[in-house]
């Protein structure tokens, strides 16, 4: 079973051998190749290169191609404020001073705005990884799109002119249907309707204004043969049940939602739920161990791998440390080993006496590879592979050793040296490569420096 098939199986609500993993690497994808958010979201080659890097490093079962909720708004006349380390923001609202619904003739066409670039990137991703990775096309949800167009007055309009709100939402749903069609045609397997503003209204308002439009949109996606997902950011706890009634195949929730309580509701409707690794406290500011622990703890709380996807709470911040996401990847792919490792990390006492080499007086360079376990962890396998290639090249001129984190003595060693992330390579006691697998040339150059 390929990783894509695993995710499809989960989306069909079957029990799977492990929980699927869908990293929401939006602008963060750019960070992997040193590109800023503007380059990433406007340059097709940069975008594809970054997405392939996400695919290589994070081994996703499913992967969003573009996470930019402003794509449609830009085409429909909103100006954008661009940032280098975040997605753009809508800077003005074309309908702020006029309670009108635009003509359907203004709806996005494949040649409008950044759509040609995005659609082409989708096709290239489909070609490159589409056999094994499920690809997500993200569209802006109708309520958030309506607020992009109308501004915050949309909330007052819900009291002052219900019919207007319904008409405007109808326009936005038509936009969503067209975008879904374009994305499905470009090879997207899952259409995610991303509507962060849903968390800001009551379930009574949801039912009055959003139930029909969303149900209509999800039915359309199903009819076109794709899976659907309903992404919501913020605290949508009160709206999980009404969201379920719109019949998407899956729902993805943010960190402020108690995912297990929410899962009890989604399970009633046999809908898959995804989430909800905290973006700031864990992913951005936590350690690799924090990230691993969060995931293994969450997985320990479900009785079987059914109707659950592991994903960040929302679009990952640009500067999330790569090590942290690799840690999550390991926790999803090798849950049992990582659980053991996290447990050991906490429990290993400093009384295991480890003697470190005398790094200053080594007779030849010492390459130490710290891994979770190169036999089971994918990233570790690559890191160890790179080290083995170097060892072959340098032969007896260097010493090389692997320390697997599954052995308690090695954990004590890691603590003594100060290893924070796995896998990593130290040369003569100094950290040289952390999580990112070095190219043959880079590793050889680093060794040559101390030869």
């Amino acid at each position, binding site marked *: 079973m390929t990783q894509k098939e695993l995710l499809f199986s989960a989306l069909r609500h079957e029990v799977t051998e492990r929980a699927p993993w869908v990293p929401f690497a939006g602008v963060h994808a750019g960070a992997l190749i040193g590109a800023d958010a503007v380059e990433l979201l406007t340059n097709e080659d940069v975008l594809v290169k970054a997405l392939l890097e996400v695919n290589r490093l994070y081994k996703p079962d499913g992967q969003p191609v573009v996470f930019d909720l402003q794509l449609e708004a830009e085409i429909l006349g909103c100006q954008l404020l661009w940032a280098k380390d975040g997605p753009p923001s*809508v*800077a003005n609202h074309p309908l702020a001073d006029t309670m009108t619904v635009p003509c359907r003739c203004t709806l996005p066409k494949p040649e409008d705005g950044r759509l040609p670039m995005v659609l082409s990137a989708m096709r290239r991703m489909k070609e490159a990884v589409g056999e094994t990775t499920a690809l997500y096309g993200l569209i802006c949800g109708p309520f958030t799109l309506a607020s992009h167009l109308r501004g915050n007055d949309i909330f007052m309009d819900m009291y002052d002119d219900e019919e207007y709100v319904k008409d405007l939402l109808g326009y936005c749903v038509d936009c969503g249907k067209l975008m879904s069609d374009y994305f499905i045609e470009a090879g997207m397997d899952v259409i995610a309707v991303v509507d962060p503003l849903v968390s800001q209204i009551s379930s009574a308002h949801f039912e009055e204004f959003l139930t029909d439009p969303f149900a209509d949109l999800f039915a359309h996606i199903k009819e076109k043969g794709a899976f659907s997902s309903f992404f919501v950011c913020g605290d949508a706890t009160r709206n999980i049940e009404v969201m379920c009634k719109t019949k998407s195949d899956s729902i993805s929730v943010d960190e402020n939602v108690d995912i297990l309580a929410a899962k009890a509701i989604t399970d009633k409707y046999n809908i898959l739920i995804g989430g909800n690794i905290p973006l700031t406290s864990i992913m951005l500011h936590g350690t690799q161990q924090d990230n691993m622990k969060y995931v293994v703890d969450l997985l320990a709380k479900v009785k079987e791998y059914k109707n659950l996807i592991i994903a960040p709470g929302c679009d990952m911040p640009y500067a999330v440390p790569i090590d942290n996401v690799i840690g999550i990847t390991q926790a999803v792919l090798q849950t049992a080993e990582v659980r053991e490792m996290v447990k050991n990390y906490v429990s290993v006492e400093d009384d295991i006496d480890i003697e470190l080499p005398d790094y200053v007086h080594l007779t030849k360079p010492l390459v130490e590879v710290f891994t979770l376990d190169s036999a089971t962890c994918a990233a570790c396998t690559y890191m160890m592979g790179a080290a083995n290639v170097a060892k072959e090249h340098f032969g007896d001129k260097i010493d090389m050793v692997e320390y697997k984190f599954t052995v308690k003595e090695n954990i004590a060693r890691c603590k003594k040296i100060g290893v924070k992330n796995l896998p990593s390579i130290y040369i003569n006691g100094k950290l040289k490569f952390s999580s990112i697998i070095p190219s043959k040339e880079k590793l050889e150059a680093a060794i040559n420096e101390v030869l």
Partner: protein
Amino acid sequence: MSILNEISENMQQGKAKVVKELVQQAVSEGYPAKQILEDGLLAGMSIIGEKFKNNDIFVPEVLVAARAMNMGAALLKPYLMEAGVKASGKVCIGTVKGDLHDIGKNLVKMMMEGKGLEVVDLGTDVLPEKFIETAREQDCQIICCSALLTTTMGVMEDVVDLADKAGIRDNIKIMVGGAPVTEAFCHKIGADKYSPDAASAADAAIEICKNLTIEQAERGSL
């Protein structure tokens, strides 16, 4: 039900027109403007704040209630001025540079107004210099910074640094809030107060203004 309760009830339901009529009626019946404000409008807004904090109501409900409150308050304004009723304090608020999100900032503003504070709204995408300049020129006791993005919350530290350099920290306090902001972050950047939600922010602001007034009086009497 007393007319002041009626004002509060209708305000909570966002019935702006009714609130306006009731406030006018209360004035005609001889209720002091201060009492109409405090026991009618602000009492209603306090309940709204509490319900919002507990997730019993959401953004649209708060917005329409605040609109009703503002309509009633506008009608009361000349009477309050005539009676010499002053605001409980003055703050300036804005979403920091690079960030255009204003729903949260607007909610905090409304809750603060609902507690009787005067609020200078600087809007979104506000430069650190603008916060400092406004607070000084308009005699604000608090600068409130909002951010929704992990990438813009760092600007709050610039506001704190600039306030340090300007030497105004004794008289002007800095409050921070927004989805990614935490107590630890507030502490790290040296801001004075973090609030997790709009209603708590309004309570905290009232407390800060009260303490500042006492401190300033003590300093003055030394």
